[in-house]
């Protein structure tokens, strides 16, 4: 048997477009797997020469799922350029909208994109293995997912004026305060959402038993983990310090200031993907592989800091092996649910703050610094916006390090692991292809700006011979 390359293009039920290729040797064993990101966006280039105060609006268009994260990271970079103290109420409101986004984004990943695999089965009929199939067989779960997402979107809408691409956070604060009459209606959304997460966690813990033999193949490998934590080590999504932990749980970076990120990791560029490959600088590209996102955040923090999430986090600890951090990427699903729980608790707590409706929500200043770094824990992981501006505030250089980029090496490692575990070298089954895709889906990568194209493209697979010639090709929906 000749060497072959198998291509899955595009990978479906993720945000954006990507493809997978893997190379088989003469015996049909997988020797190499690559996740290619085929989108090219060019934001870093066309943002040049725009005023920095436009950046939250422009960069939030990077993504239709997590526009709030880009808006906030950009506004924080703008805060640094202004060199002002953001009013406390503005910080609280920014946190509030960000937790709302974690709720809706994680709900989308879990219920809409991954639950069809988890509940209907990896090898179930692909025609039904989608959100509509979920509605047919598990209407309660589908309804819960839609409702949970709605709760997050509603909070974003009330605060930011609209649920997708709100134009609200600005350098120096936010544009408008929270109206006192809105507080109760937002607070009323939380109890139902908490109930949804509780029963979903129960369902997930029950269903995951069916995957017990699969778990070790879905990106279960030692790696580093990176995420923000509060200065005292709590779970953090909006501010705080950077922590890097190794596979054994040893903390390599205890509390790095986020603006020093260039000292912590470097990026490599490969010709076969538009996504860059960051790695932990001190250990080099091979050993410096790290993961970010829900799993990494739960690994690097000492505690969540809210009662329900802390209990769920303790239970999450059952996946630790020999006291090491949880290493299986499959557990990102559970980590997302825990983060939704945490976000809802924090939303309720923040809305109870009597100062949340303070009307002083924006500080004004001119350009007081030429460089600004904004960092935030986006749903998919640590997000950096790094701007250099001229004396008038026109952007000269932009560096955006997005969460899906941080996980690039890990995603590639994961699909290799899945291919080696489930590929038999002779037959490519639909179920096998879906497992490969699920390997990407667990990271919930956000490759472009929307899920509006879900269902428009099928899954394309190509067999390439050793010289790159196409041997076989077929497309699935």
């Amino acid at each position, binding site marked *: 048997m000749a060497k072959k390359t198998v291509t899955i293009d595009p990978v479906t039920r993720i945000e954006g477009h990507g493809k997978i290729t893997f190379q088989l040797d003469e015996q049909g064993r997988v020797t190499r797997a690559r996740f290619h990101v085929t989108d090219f966006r060019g934001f870093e280039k066309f943002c040049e020469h725009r*005023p920095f105060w*436009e950046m939250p609006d422009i960069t939030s268009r990077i993504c239709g799922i997590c526009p709030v994260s880009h808006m906030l990271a950009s506004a924080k970079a703008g805060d640094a350029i202004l060199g002002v103290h953001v009013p406390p109420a503005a910080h609280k409101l920014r946190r509030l909208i960000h937790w709302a986004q974690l709720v809706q984004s994680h709900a989308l990943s879990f219920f809409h994109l991954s639950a069809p695999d988890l509940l209907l089965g990896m090898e179930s009929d692909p025609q039904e293995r989608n959100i509509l199939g979920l509605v047919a067989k598990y209407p309660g779960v589908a309804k819960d997912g839609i409702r949970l997402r709605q709760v997050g979107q509603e909070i974003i809408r009330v605060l930011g004026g609209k649920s997708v691409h709100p134009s609200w956070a600005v350098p120096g604060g936010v544009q408008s305060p929270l109206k006192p009459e809105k507080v109760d209606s937002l607070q009323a959304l939380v109890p139902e959402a908490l109930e949804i997460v509780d029963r979903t966690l129960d369902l997930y813990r029950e269903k995951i038993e069916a995957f017990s033999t699969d778990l070790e193949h879905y990106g279960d490998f030692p790696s580093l983990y990176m995420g923000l934590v509060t200065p005292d080590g709590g779970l953090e999504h909006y501010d705080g310090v950077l922590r890097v932990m190794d596979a054994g749980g040893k903390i390599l970076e205890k509390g790095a200031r986020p603006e020093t990120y260039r000292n912590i990791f470097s990026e490599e560029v490969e010709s076969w993907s538009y996504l860059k490959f960051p790695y932990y600088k001190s250990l080099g590209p091979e050993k410096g592989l790290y993961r970010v996102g829900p799993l990494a955040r739960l690994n690097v923090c000492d505690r969540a800091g809210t009662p329900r999430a802390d209990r769920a986090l303790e239970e999450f600890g059952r996946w630790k092996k020999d006291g090491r951090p949880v290493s299986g990427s499959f557990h990102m699903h559970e980590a997302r649910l825990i983060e939704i729980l945490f976000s809802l608790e924090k939303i309720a707590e923040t809305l109870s703050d009597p100062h949340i409706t303070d009307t002083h929500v924006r500080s004004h200043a001119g350009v007081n610094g030429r460089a600004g770094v904004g960092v935030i824990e986006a749903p998919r992981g640590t997000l950096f916006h790094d701007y250099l501006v001229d004396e*008038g505030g026109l952007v000269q250089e932009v560096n955006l390090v997005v969460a899906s980029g941080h996980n690039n090496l890990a995603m590639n490692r994961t699909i290799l692991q899945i291919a080696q575990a489930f590929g038999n070298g002779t037959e490519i089954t639909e179920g096998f292809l879906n497992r490969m895709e699920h390997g990407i889906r667990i990271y919930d990568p956000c490759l472009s700006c929307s899920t509006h194209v879900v269902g428009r493209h099928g899954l394309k697979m190509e067999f390439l011979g050793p010289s790159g010639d196409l041997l076989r090709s077929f497309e699935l929906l």
Partner: protein
Amino acid sequence: MALVTLTIDNRKVSAEEGQNLLQVIREQGIDMPTLCHLDGLSERGGCRLCVVEEEGSSKLLASCVTAVRENMRVTTGSDRLFRYRRMLVELLFAERNHVCSVCVMNRRCELQSLALRFGVDHLRYDPLYPRLSTDVSHEKYALDHNRCVLCARCVRVCDEVEGVHTLDMMGRGVSCRVIADLNQPWATSRTCTNCGKCVQVCPTGAMYIKETFSAHGEKRPDLPKRIRDGREKHTWGG
């Protein structure tokens, strides 16, 4: 003052001699689209959106710069005029970089309103995508050439109402730009009084108050007329 009689859309109309056609058309309650015209400023005839057909002539007339004449018969709305107006709006969009979603004047922009009015949901012309600068040197205001449609309202209000003529135009055709003084950064202008009237009359997001965020811009295009009425007629309408 002598009166003239003309026909507008098959209606007999009386007008004062010397009035321009646009004034008379609007007095008749006809909704004539304009962009460069602004009450209180001299007419420019630049945007050509107010074109009308005159019986006996194949040429379209810009009504803002056409004086009424005895017995003229004009049509203000026809399929042909609609097509031309739509084409003009498309060409304005194609000439520079109008990204409405992130523009300060999104949802309040006169160019955007015209696009909606004429159903411009795509361009039939390849956009030029020129690489244009934004002058953010002024302490309060920004001038983004990407969004400028060269209506020259800013130039006229600066000259005719504020009386300082800081702003003017330089270059021709696609190279044409609004400039301050001798084409220098706005902040270095020694004639600018920082009054901001240029910003208030700009129909798009080309001139705006700095640190205004998308869809949050507000303009006061009524200012030139109000100021003139106050100055010349001593009437101070709200």
